């Protein structure tokens, strides 16, 4: 029998970026907010101070920051003809665990999606005709213009360094000319670029492209955010992604919100408490709270007026399925919506090797890069190309860590003395151009509950059915060709093309940009949540995170995830609280 706890106004399931933003916004509105986090407490000086942060063995190889697959993981298959098997070791993506979530170990590449990304279905249909058979792309139901001030808030919260390309409608030299209209510039200047970015910029300009510095959540200078929280200048140590930053130089919930939030009397955080189910009343139309279990196995019933899912997208979708809210998507019948439109990201790269120029890539930062956006979204004419969407091309210098980094030229043996020699010769003299492609939704790619495997509590694991699509393959081939054109002009001795070919492989790291499964849209017939991220079925239930993306754009998702969270928080405060109920009439 679960022990019933005193009710709260709001319970947040998961406490990463979206949980921290939501907690800050709703406590400011005077609500009593409780966050339940299944992982532990984490802060900079205790868990990743400079003295231990750059420990590759501990954090990358042994996955200290990531979800524990021995307790719960997901099963994976490429298509329905296969039997999904559990991922016992993370590979292609790395979901975080603990306070701050994956927001602790991100790189800090903080883009805004393009205005056309939010209306991908209608925009592309208008321009190129009907979508291909099986493609289930749809509009977000919210526009870039509606989200603009929320993007701006997140950039100021984080101290993003960058160069505006479109300031209140006026194009700015040196910025991204394709970006949506910005109400304000970035709060900080771009990071210092290295030799590699300068070569990329030069090559891109030769090709008539418009390179711009990547928007970065690694601080280009000391920054105090609007909450008074301080971020220190980045030291370019090259331990961002997969690591916590020891220098307070990367915007994470701990360095932007938590110092203020944790002191509030109307906020409570319970760590090591995993939510098992969203509970509902007999009508099924109202969430009564959640049940959660602590490390001792004791189960609690937590009543709440509002339930907000703030876990990783895969977890949010699974919790909806385990709680029986909405129907799980079935591609054969086309019925059901939970688990639909699972999307990812399609990445490739081209390495550049120099003979006598040092790139010194160990002097890096997670979001230190130059970018071009000519081949992203619908910034170029897709007529005759056989795909929609695109991606950015960038020259990043994120790191050169001794265990992880070993770029070698074409023809290098895969092991032994020849490999070692090549690693040694090229370690300090190489760079690359990477492509970061969109992922368009298709009917067969989806999430559901696995029929065989269960977690430590005996509940079904999430099952992922995913492979690259015809759109993905045509798009990545095109982007890789464009990257090759630039790489060839960067003044190196030789290049090596790492194209994305064959079936999606869940083992080699690609990106932790898993999207969809709890998608947003315009009607209960096409989406799990409405434009305010409010459940159509249960109006006092909200779902945050990239799970609401109907399809993934050619950018890193965090900026858009955060903007949507601020947007939803604003709607809850200004519309839902005065009149609790559906904010969009179906």
């Amino acid at each position, binding site marked *: 029998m679960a022990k019933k706890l005193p009710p709260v106004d709001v319970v947040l399931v998961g406490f990463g970026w979206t949980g921290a933003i939501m907690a800050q916004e709703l406590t400011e509105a005077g609500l009593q907010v409780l966050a339940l986090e299944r992982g532990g407490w984490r802060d*900079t000086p205790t868990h990743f101070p*400079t003295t231990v942060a750059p420990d590759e063995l501990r954090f990358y190889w042994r996955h200290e920051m990531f979800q524990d697959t021995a307790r719960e993981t997901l099963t994976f298959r490429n298509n329905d003809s296969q039997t999904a098997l559990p991922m016992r070791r993370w590979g292609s993506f790395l979901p975080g665990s603990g306070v701050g979530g994956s927001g602790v170990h991100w790189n800090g590449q903080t883009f805004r999606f393009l205005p056309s990304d939010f209306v991908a279905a209608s925009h592309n249909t208008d321009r190129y005709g009907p979508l291909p058979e099986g493609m289930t792309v749809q509009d977000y139901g919210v526009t870039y213009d509606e989200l603009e001030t929320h993007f701006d808030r997140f950039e100021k919260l984080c101290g993003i360094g960058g160069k505006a390309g479109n300031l209140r409608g006026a194009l700015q030299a040196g910025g991204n000319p394709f970006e949506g209209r910005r109400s304000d510039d970035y709060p900080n200047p771009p990071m210092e670029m290295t030799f590699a970015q300068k070569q990329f910029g030069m090559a891109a300009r030769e090709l008539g492209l418009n390179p711009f510095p990547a928007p970065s959540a690694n601080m280009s200078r000391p920054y105090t955010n609007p909450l008074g*929280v*301080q971020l220190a200048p980045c030291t370019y140590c090259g331990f961002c992604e997969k690591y916590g930053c020891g220098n307070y130089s990367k915007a994470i919930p701990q360095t932007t919100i938590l*110092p203020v939030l944790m002191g509030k009397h109307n906020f409570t955080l319970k760590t090591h408490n995993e939510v098992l189910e969203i509970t509902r009343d007999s009508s099924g139309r109202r969430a009564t709270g959640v049940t959660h279990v602590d490390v001792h196995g004791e189960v609690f019933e937590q009543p709440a007026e509002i339930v907000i899912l703030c876990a990783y997208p895969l977890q949010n979708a699974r919790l909806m399925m385990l709680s029986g809210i909405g129907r799980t998507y079935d591609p054969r019948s086309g019925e059901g919506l939970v688990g639909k439109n699972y999307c990812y990201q399609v990445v490739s790269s081209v390495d550049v090797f120099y003979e006598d120029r040092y790139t010194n890539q160990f002097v890096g930062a997670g979001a230190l890069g130059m970018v071009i956006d000519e081949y992203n979204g619908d910034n170029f004419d897709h007529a005759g190309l056989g795909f929609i969407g695109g991606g950015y091309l960038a020259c990043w210098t994120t790191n050169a860590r001794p265990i992880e980094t070993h770029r070698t030229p074409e023809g290098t043996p895969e092991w032994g003395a020849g490999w070692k020699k090549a690693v040694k010769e090229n370690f300090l003299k190489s760079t690359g151009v990477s492509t970061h492609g969109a992922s368009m939704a298709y009917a067969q790619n989806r999430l559901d509950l696995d029929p065989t495997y269960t977690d430590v509590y005996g509940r079904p694991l999430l099952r992922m059915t995913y492979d690259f699509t015809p759109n993905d393959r045509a798009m990545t081939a095109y982007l890789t060709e464009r990257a090759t054109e630039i790489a060839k002009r960067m003044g190196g001795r030789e290049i090596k093309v790492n194209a994305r070919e064959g079936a999606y492989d869940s083992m080699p790291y690609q990106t932790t940009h898993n999207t969809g499964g709890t998608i947003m849209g315009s009607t209960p017939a096409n989406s799990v949540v409405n434009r305010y991220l409010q459940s159509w079925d249960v109006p006092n239930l909200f779902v945050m995170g990239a799970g609401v993306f109907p399809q993934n754009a050619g950018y890193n998702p965090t900026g858009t995830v955060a903007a949507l969270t601020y947007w939803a928080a604003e709607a809850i405060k200004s519309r839902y609280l005065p009149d609790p109920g559906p904010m969009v009439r179906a």
Partner: protein
Amino acid sequence: MRKSASFLVAGSALLGAVEAARANDFAAVERGRYLTQAGNCQGCHTPAGEEPFAGSRPLETPFGVIYTPNITFDTETGLGRWTKDDFWRAMHEGKAKDGSQLYPAFPYPHFTKMPREDVDAIYAYLATLEPVRKKRPENELPFPLNWRFTVKGWNMTFFEPGVFRPDPEKSQAWNRGAYLVEGPGHCSGCHTEKNLLGADKKGRHLAGGRLENWSAPDIRAGRHGGLEKWSEEEIVEFLRTGRNAHSAAFSIMSEVISYSTQHMAEADLKAIATYLKDLTGEERAAPRKPADAVMTAGAAIYLDNCTACHVSDGSGVPRFFPPLAGSGKVNNPDPTTVIRVLLEGARAVPTKTHPSPLTMPAFGWKLDDDEIAAVATYVRSSWGNSGGAVEADEVRKLRGLLAEGPP
């Protein structure tokens, strides 16, 4: 009818008197709250994370451990049975309700400078707090100090009761600052070196002290004083926000800022700065130049471990990571704080202005005694600093003391 009318009149007159008394009470309570804060009573009378003002915090004195009393108005374990006169006697003369001597760990040699109306106001404020029943443990003092009458002799030598008298030669701000520093603020409790009997050393007033294995810096801010380089504005900023261009507060000063100075009126902080700026120090002889080999080792250790925050030239990131060049803590002739911060790390106090508890990690597990001594020597002897060398033995000794832990 007439009768009841006159009764009504009398009644409303009475009501008026009560209201007036309440209004006076409010002013007194508010004044008392402010002074209680200015004196940081909460700091000593509250163990970390426990009920404010209910006492039992252990104070490590060179003579043994003294547990602070409960100053909420609980009748059994607190001040519930104390009268205003009892309280005045404690604050002004250092005597308990029963007439026994209080130990001077309770800073009555400073509080004696407070006028009666200020002391009464504190009493009025403490009386409004929720009484907490909490009995403190017995003090751990060796014979004969556990006999309270031994304090009598101490008082005869070191204590002179008397309310603060303004110096008519000085400005109003200077006098207000002097009152706050020497009276309720009791700054010299930490910042003045003590003699063998625990009383302030003559001629060392506010020139730096040592307590609980920390060295409190010299806070004289005139010529040759420890804070000579700090402007009045920078002193105010430090007390109000916990940071300024030169330094960040940590350890015991964290409590002072957190509970006390960040809540004080700007005019009072300015007054404190005016007073401190008027206190000159003594010129110090340059310390012996450290050995080249130690400086070379120290520079290498510094480059690997410290530059990410404190920057290769010791300039730090002002208000984020304190500069080491010119730092009063670094240049303190007593290197205890420098060594201790290297061993244990330190957390900059989070304040209303700067809520981030920016923290330096510990290096005690990573660097040995020789390495800590070398890097401490290096930072104390570079970029214009003249703190002097630190010996490995000093590091070893402090490690030992810290390993014993608090009582």
